[in-house]
Every structure is written in structure tokens, then in C-alpha cells.
């Protein structure tokens, strides 16, 4: 049974949540400056109003939760889960004020989609959205990729021990440096360095394909933010198809694959440990599954003769598969082409790729290459045991920032997370079928929300039933936080109210 939380426990969670809300509220300054630069005065008012409301909520929560207690694992986990819900409600304010959403639920759906780097959208008339609102959309996905709590840790939470628990609560568990503050800084350093390179590359590509210089810069910045965060948002409703440029597609592939790598791997390679990128179990697992699933996708497309030549097959097949496997969700085809042209085999390969996802402690979703690698190693170990005498002892090893022995607890933990992912994948598939969508389409969209991918086969739209939107929001949230924080939040709330009733 869960330990009953005291009022001090609740206060601590509220205090940290308040700080996270303040951190996100401060971000509103960036779209406000964009609105001033673009002369979008209506939007400036929306953002100023949202800033005022968000800061008030943040300071109120921080004040309500003022306590001297230090954070434990429970507080970190519950804050990780709870703060994402509060932040979703708060960050949806500018969306709602803009008039581009049919309901507040739709606005919250898009915020959760942005923060979890999913990339599905319910926004209306995306092609005519104000520059400052587009900046907010892409900023949300960029910050969400690094972690909302990582942002707060960098600037607002200086308590190192409690900070680490919050960091783990957000679904990240790699400590790049002994200090959690330095770990958060290193994550931002890597992201911002690539931000400069990626934006420049896409800016140049944008100019080369004929976009005006200013638009090319903004598109480059936004598309980079969405690529690195494996978010999948784009400023135009046609997504990356809008650019009709192999160069643009090639650059985005590089940055979304890089974004799907573990921050600890980036940190190791950037500090001179170059062999790690080849030896690491996650990159090995990713390279293997990506090659195999590319083969299956191409086979499926070739069987149906979807594309007339090899160049088109590679360009369309590989791009969508890589985008799905890294959980980015950038598309260079129309959603209904997946349902009407691609065929079951290619769509199934995409579903598997979306569920596997990228690396742990990265911007990517899915149940992660690390867990696929660990479960594969466990299978190898069990098979070897079967083929050798009963007394033989095996130490299965794998490379993950150094040689490691495979332990029972690692296998159990990996298997549990995979089972949880598959369970909520079935749950959302069931919800899709209950809403009247065909099985394959429901499964595809479910894999997309569960793996935080953002690909759509046409199910996600403002007209879909509200209960399905809520289920998808839950799956995006649970998938991004890898369940522990979500389970802890529910257990915490249930235990708190049980205490009240007693």
C-alpha cells in the first residue's frame, strides 16, 4: 500500500510545480518579443494576458507550497507527473486566445502534443497562423524535448538532491555529470550548439529553394526545433512536403536522428569518447531495427508498386520510416496516402518503428532502443543457457558507456516498461475502434500517440470524439514520462484522498 502523503508532501509537490509553471511562463517572453518584431499587436495582448495568468498561478502554487522539507523520490515522481498536467493547462492559454482552436480541450491537446514532442495537431487554419504563435508552438516542442523540468532545474531549482529526483520523474535518468545542475546545463549546451548549426543549414536550404530570406530563417529555426526535439511540428499544414526539397529533407533527417540519440552519448562523443557511438547498445540496436524495418517498408511499397522508381521509393519510404523510428513525425506524404496507398505491410512496419522509438534520455519517445537491446541480450542469454549443461554460468555483457553485465533487475525493468507501452497502445487502439475507426488506422494512430511520434493516418482531427482526444492526451503524457511518474501521481492522489476519508 502507498504511504499516505502528509500536507507537507502535498505542499512540496505544489511548490516544485509552481516553479515549473513559472519557468514555462517566462518562456512566453520569447513569443511576446516575436509579436513586437512582427507587429502582431493582438497576439502581444494574448501572450501578455497568458503571462500574467501563468505567473499568478505559478507564484500562488509556490507560495502555497512553501516548506522546508527536502524532496524524496515520491515528490520527484509526483511533481514530474502533476506538473506536466498543470503546465499543459497553462500553456494552452495563448492557443485558446488566438481563436485557432474549436475548444480548450483542443488547445490542451496541442500543448501536450508539443511538450511530449508528439507533433499531432488540432489547430485550425495552420497555414495562416501568426508568426508569434508559430514561435510559441515550436518553442513548446523544443523545450519539451529537453524536458520542461530540465528547464526549471537549469534556472529555478537549485536544490541538487531534490533536483535529481525531479529529473528522474520526468523520464530521464542519465546523470551526465555528478551535479544535476551541470547535467541540465550540458543538455542545453548540446541542444543550443546544434540549434545554431541546424538553423543555419535549413536557412541556407530555404533560401536555395526560393523562400524569402526572413521566412527561410523562421522556417529553418522552427523546423530545426521540431527536428531536434523529434517533435514533428511544422509551420505549414503540409508539413515537410510543403518544401518539395530533397536538400531540406536530407538536413532534417540528420537532425532528427541526432535528436533521437541519448544526451549521455552526445556528451561522451563530444568529450572525446568517439568509439561509444559505434559500440553503444542503443545505437547498435537502433541501426539494426532501422535497417530491418526500412527493408520491410520498402518491400511492402514495392509489392504494391506505390512508387515508380528507386529514387522515389528511397526518398518517400526511408524518410517516413526514419521519421517514425526516431518518433519525429515529419511527413513528406499526405496522411491518407498511408491508409489508401501504402498497404498493410508498410504501415505495420511503421507501427513497430513508432513503438520502438529512439534512445533513452533523448528527446525521442517509444519504449527505446536500450530496452530492445537489453531484452535481446536476455533472450540470447536464455538461449545459451538452454544449449549448455545446467551447471554452466553465463555472464551476458553489453556496452553502454562501458562494458556492463546484464542483471536480472535491468531485464525486469526493461520488460515492464515495454509491457506498459504495449498495454496503453492496445488501450488507445481499442478507444479508436470504439470511436468507429478501422483497426489498422486505430492501431497506427495509437502507436503514434503512445510513442510520441506525431504521424497521422487521418484519425486525429478536431472532429474526432472528445473521449478519444482525452485518451490520446493520456497516452502522450504516460508515454513521455515512461509511466513511473504517472503511476506515482495517481497513487499519490488516491492515497491522499483515502486519508481524508479515514
Amino acid at each position, binding site marked *: 500500500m502507498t504511504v499516505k502523503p502528509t500536507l507537507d508532501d502535498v505542499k512540496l509537490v505544489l511548490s516544485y510545480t509552481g516553479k515549473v509553471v513559472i519557468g514555462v511562463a517566462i518562456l512566453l517572453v520569447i513569443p511576446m518579443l516575436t509579436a513586437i518584431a512582427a507587429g502582431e499587436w493582438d497576439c502581444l495582448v494574448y501572450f501578455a494576458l497568458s503571462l500574467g495568468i501563468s505567473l499568478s498561478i505559478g507564484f500562488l502554487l509556490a507560495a502555497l507550497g512553501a516548506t522546508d522539507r527536502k524532496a524524496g523520490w515520491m515528490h520527484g515522481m509526483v511533481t514530474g507527473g502533476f506538473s506536466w498536467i498543470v503546465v499543459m493547462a497553462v500553456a494552452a492559454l495563448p492557443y485558446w486566445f488566438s481563436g485557432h482552436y474549436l475548444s480548450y480541450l483542443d488547445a490542451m491537446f496541442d500543448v501536450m502534443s508539443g511538450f511530449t514532442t508528439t507533433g499531432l495537431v488540432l489547430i485550425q487554419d495552420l497555414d495562416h497562423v501568426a508568426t508569434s504563435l508559430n514561435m510559441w508552438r515550436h518553442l513548446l516542442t523544443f523545450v519539451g524535448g529537453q524536458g520542461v523540468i530540465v528547464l526549471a532545474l537549469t534556472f529555478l531549482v537549485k536544490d541538487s538532491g531534490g533536483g535529481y529526483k525531479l529529473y528522474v520523474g520526468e523520464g530521464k535518468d542519465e546523470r551526465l555529470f555528478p551535479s544535476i545542475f551541470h547535467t541540465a546545463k550540458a543538455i542545453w549546451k548540446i541542444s543550443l550548439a546544434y540549434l545554431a548549426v541546424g538553423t543555419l543549414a535549413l536557412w541556407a536550404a530555404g533560401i536555395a529553394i526560393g523562400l524569402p530570406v526572413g521566412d527561410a530563417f523562421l522556417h529553418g529555426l522552427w523546423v530545426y526545433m521540431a527536428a531536434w526535439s523529434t517533435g514533428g511540428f511544422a509551420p505549414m499544414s503540409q508539413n515537410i512536403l510543403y518544401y518539395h526539397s530533397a536538400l531540406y529533407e536530407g538536413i532534417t533527417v540528420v537532425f532528427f536522428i*541526432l535528436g533521437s540519440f541519448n544526451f549521455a552519448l552526445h556528451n561522451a562523443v563530444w568529450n572525446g569518447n568517439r568509439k561509444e557511438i559505434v559500440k553503444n547498445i542503443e545505437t547498435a540496436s537502433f541501426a539494426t531495427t*532501422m535497417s530491418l524495418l526500412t527493408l520491410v517498408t*520498402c*518491400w511492402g511499397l514495392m509489392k504494391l508498386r506505390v512508387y515508380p522508381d528507386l529514387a522515389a521509393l528511397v526518398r518517400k519510404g526511408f524518410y517516413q520510416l526514419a521519421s517514425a523510428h526516431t518518433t519525429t513525425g515529419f511527413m513528406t506524404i499526405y496522411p491518407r496516402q498511408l491508409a489508401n496507398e501504402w498497404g498493410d505491410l508498410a504501415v505495420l512496419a511503421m507501427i513497430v518503428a513508432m513503438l520502438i522509438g529512439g534512445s533513452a534520455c533523448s528527446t525521442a519517445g517509444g519504449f527505446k532502443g536500450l530496452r530492445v537491446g537489453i531484452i535481446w541480450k536476455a533472450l540470447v542469454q536464455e538461449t545459451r543457457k538452454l544449449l549448455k549443461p545446467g551447471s554452466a554460468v553465463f555472464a551476458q555483457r553489453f556496452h553502454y558507456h562501458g562494458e556492463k553485465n546484464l542483471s536480472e533487475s535491468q531485464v525486469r525493468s526493461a520488460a515492464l516498461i515495454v509491457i506498459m507501452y504495449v498495454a496503453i497502445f492496445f488501450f488507445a487502439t481499442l478507444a479508436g475502434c470504439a470511436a468507429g475507426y478501422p483497426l489498422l488506422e486505430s492501431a497506427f494512430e495509437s502507436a503514434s500517440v503512445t510513442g510520441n511520434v506525431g504521424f497521422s493516418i487521418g484519425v486525429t482531427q478536431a472532429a474526432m470524439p472528445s473521449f478519444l482526444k482525452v485518451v490520446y492526451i493520456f497516452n502522450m503524457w504516460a508515454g513521455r514520462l515512461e509511466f513511473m511518474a504517472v503511476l506515482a501521481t495517481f497513487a499519490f492522489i488516491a492515497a491522499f484522498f483515502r486519508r481524508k476519508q479515514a
Partner: protein
Amino acid sequence: MSPARIARRRQNRLAASGALIEIAYVVGLSCACCLVCAIAWFALG
């Protein structure tokens, strides 16, 4: 130039070369996947 600045420059150079290696790895992996597509095309097509 101060030793701290020299160390910082060395660190930045190391990080830049690390980033280049990562980009080269990703380009290599993408090419390998495209090659897989091509092999499938010629073998099955």
C-alpha cells in the same frame, strides 16, 4: 592567453569534432538504409 582559455578552446575543438563524428555516423547510417532499399529494389523488383 590564460590556461583556462586554452583549456576551453581545446574543449570546444573536441566538442566540434565530436559533433562532426556524430553527423558522419548519421549520414553513414542513412546511406546504409538507402542501400538496403536499393538492394531490395534490385532483388525483388
